[in-house]
C-alpha cells in the first residue's frame, strides 16, 4: 500500500537532488532543469497532501506553480541565449561580473 508518506519521501529525495544539482552543476541549462526538478517535487507533495486531506487547494497551487515554471522557462532560456551570444558560454562560474 502506497501511503502519503511514500509520496512525501519521494518528494524530499527529488527536492534534495534538485538542490544539489543547482549548487554543483556549472551548465546553466542543467541548473535550470534542476530547478524544474525542485519545483515538481514540491508539486508532488502538494498533490499527495491534497489527495490525503481531501482538499483541492493544493491542486490549484500546482497549476500556479506550473504556470510560473512555464513563464520562467521562457524568460530563462531567452536569458541563456543572450548570455551565450555575448560570452560564448553558459557556464555560470564564468559569469561573475556582479561583484566588488
Amino acid at each position, binding site marked *: 500500500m502506497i501511503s502519503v508518506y511514500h509520496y512525501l519521501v519521494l518528494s524530499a529525495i527529488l527536492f534534495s537532488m534538485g538542490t544539489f544539482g543547482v549548487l554543483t552543476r556549472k551548465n546553466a541549462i542543467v541548473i535550470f532543469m534542476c530547478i524544474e526538478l525542485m519545483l515538481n517535487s514540491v508539486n508532488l507533495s502538494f498533490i499527495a497532501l491534497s489527495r490525503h486531506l481531501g482538499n483541492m487547494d493544493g491542486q490549484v497551487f500546482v497549476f500556479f506553480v506550473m504556470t510560473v515554471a512555464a513563464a520562467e522557462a521562457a524568460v530563462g532560456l531567452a536569458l541563456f541565449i543572450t548570455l551565450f551570444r555575448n560570452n560564448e558560454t553558459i557556464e555560470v562560474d564564468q559569469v*561573475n561580473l556582479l561583484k*566588488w
Partner: protein
Amino acid sequence: MYDKLWLIPFFPLLGSVINGLFGKKIKNEKVIGSIATLAIASSFVVSCLCFFTLLDDKVKIHQQVVASWMSIGQLQIDWGFLLDPLSALMIMVVTGVGSLIHLYSIGYMHGEEGFYRFFCYLNLFCFSMLMLVLGNNALVMFVGWEGVGLCSYLLIGYYFEKKSAGDAAKKAFVVNRVGDFGFLLGLFTLFWYLGSEHNVWTVNFVEISQNAHLLPAGGFVVTFVTLCFFLGATGKSAQIPLYTWLPDAMEGPTPVSALIHAATMVTAGVYMIGRMNGLFALAPTTMMVIAIVGAATAIFAASIGLAQNDIKRVLAYSTVSQLGYMFLAMGVGAFTAGVFHLMTHAFFKACLFLGSGSVIHGMHHGYHHAHLHDDPQDMRNMGGLRKKMPITFVTFLVSTIAIAGIPGFSGFFSKDEILWWSFGSNHGSWMLWLVGAIAAGLTAFYMFRLVFMTFFGEQRTDPRAKDHIPESGLTITIPLMVLGVLAVLGGYVGVPAILGGANKIHHYLEPVFGHTIEVNHIAAHGSHSTEIALMATSIAIAVFGIFLAWLMYVKKPELPGKFVGAFTGLHRTIFNKWYVDEIYDALFVNPTKRLGTFFWKGFDVKVVDGIVNGVGALVNLASKGLRYTQSGLVQNYAMTMVLGVIVIAAFYFFG
C-alpha cells in the same frame, strides 16, 4: 509729555535704519549727515521737553511701558522707560553732546569711504545708549549695555583695513565681555535671591530700590551682587583692572572717541551705580572697593598720561583718570558729585577730543598737501598751532582749564566736590583725598603739557607741510564753541554752598539719591575752614602742575630731555604704560591662546577628529573584509540561501 518718551531712542534708530539700508544708494554726504544729525537732534528736542516738564513736575519718577517683553509666572518684564532726574540728565547729555558730535562728524568724516556706515553706527550707538539710560529694568538696560558695546566695537574698527584698528576693536569687545559677565552674574544673583527668599520676582529698578531693604545690609549677598555689578562697571567704564581697552580704542575716528570713549558710553558704569545706589549703599565693602579702585585708576592713568606723545592717547588716559574720579565719588557715597562730574566731564572732554580731532584734521591736511606720511597725531610734530587754529585753540584751552580744576570753570566745581567728599564723607579717608589731589595735579600737568606742546612754542611740523594747516570748517568749529561755552558754564549748576552757591544739581538729584543717603547715613562732615583749606590746597596743586608744565614745555624746552635722561628707567616704564598690556598678555592672553592651541591641536585634531576618522576607518576596514563574500557567482549566493534555510529549519525542529 512722558508718553512721548519712546520717541527719544526711536529717532536715532530710525536714522540708523535709513542710513544703514539706503546710505549706499543716497551717496550724497550732506543728505546722509543731515539725516543722522536730524535724528539725534529730534531726540534732543524731545529730551528737552521731557526734562523741563520733569523740572516743573511735583512727581519726579515716571515709568512708561511701551510693550510687554516677557511674562513668566510672577515675573513681568516690559519694554519700559524710566524718567527720573538722573535719567533725564543723562538723556540731555547724550542727545545734546551727541547732536554736536554728529554735526562735527559731517565735517570731520568728509570724503571718508563708508561715510554712511559711520553715521549708521553712530546713530545706532545713540539708540543703544538711550535705551541704556532710559530702561526701567535691568534687562532693557542690558540690551543698551550690549548695544553700546557692539557699536563701540564697530566704530573702533571703522578703519578695519588697518590691523591695529581691528585688534583694538576686538580687544575692546573681549575686555567688555569680561565686565558684562559680572553684570549678568550680579543681576542673576540679585533676581534669584529676591525671588527665592522673599518672593519678589523683579528686575525693575524702581521695585529693586523699593525692596533693597530686604537684603541684609553689609551681608554677603548684597556685597557679592554689587561687586559683580561693579565688575561690569569696570569693563564698560575702563577702570582697573579692565581699563586697557580704552587707550587702544583711540584707533577709531576722533568723533567716536569724543562721543563714545569720553562723553557717554564709558560713563555707563557710573550711571549704573547711580541707578542702583540703594543696593550699593548697603554694601560698605563694595563702596570701599569702588572708592579705592577709582582713586587708584585716577592716579595710575594720570601717571601714564604724563609721558604719552600721541595727542589722543593723552586724552584717553585722561578720560580713564577722570572716570576714576567719578568712581571715587560713587565709592565715598557722593553720588551727586559723581553724576555732576560725569556731566561736566562730558562737556569738557568732548570738547577736548573734538579739538584734538580738529588739530589732527589740520595736520592731516598739511601732510596730505605736502605728500608726507608723518604721524598727524604725534605732538612732537606740532607746536605753535594757536595762530593757525585760533578757534580750536581757544576752546581747547578753555576745556583744559576746566579739566585742570581752575576756579570758575566747570571741572573745578565737580572735581572739588568729589575731593571734599572723599575727605569728609564717612566712607572717605584722607588717603583717598591725597591720591585724588595728586592725580588732580598730574592732570593739570599733562593737560597743559599737551596744550603747550600742541599750540605754543616753535612749530615743529615738517617745513613742507607747516604752512598748509588750516583752521577747520564751521561744522567742526561750531560744536567746539558750544562745548567750550558749556565747559565753562556747566559747573554753575553745582556751585557748593560754601562758595555761596545753591548747589542746584544736588537738589535736582535729591529724588534719586536722597533716600539712600538718608537711610544709610551717608554724609560729609567737617568744618567750613577744612573745606576751604582743602579747596585751596587742590587749587594750589593744580596751579603748580600748570606752572611745571609751562616751565618744562615753554620756558625751558630742554628740561624734559634732561629729566628723561635722569630717570630713564622710570620714563620708559611710564611711556610703556607700566607694561600692563605686556603683563596681561603674559598672564591672561597668552595662556588663553596656549589653551586654545592645546584644544585645537591636542584635543580637536587628535581626539575629536580621531574619533570621527576612526569610525570611518573602522567601517572601511570591515567592508574591505566583507566584500569578498560578494563573489558574483550565483551558486555561492544560492549556497548561502540553502544554508540559511537549513539553519532556520534546524532552529524550528530542534530549537
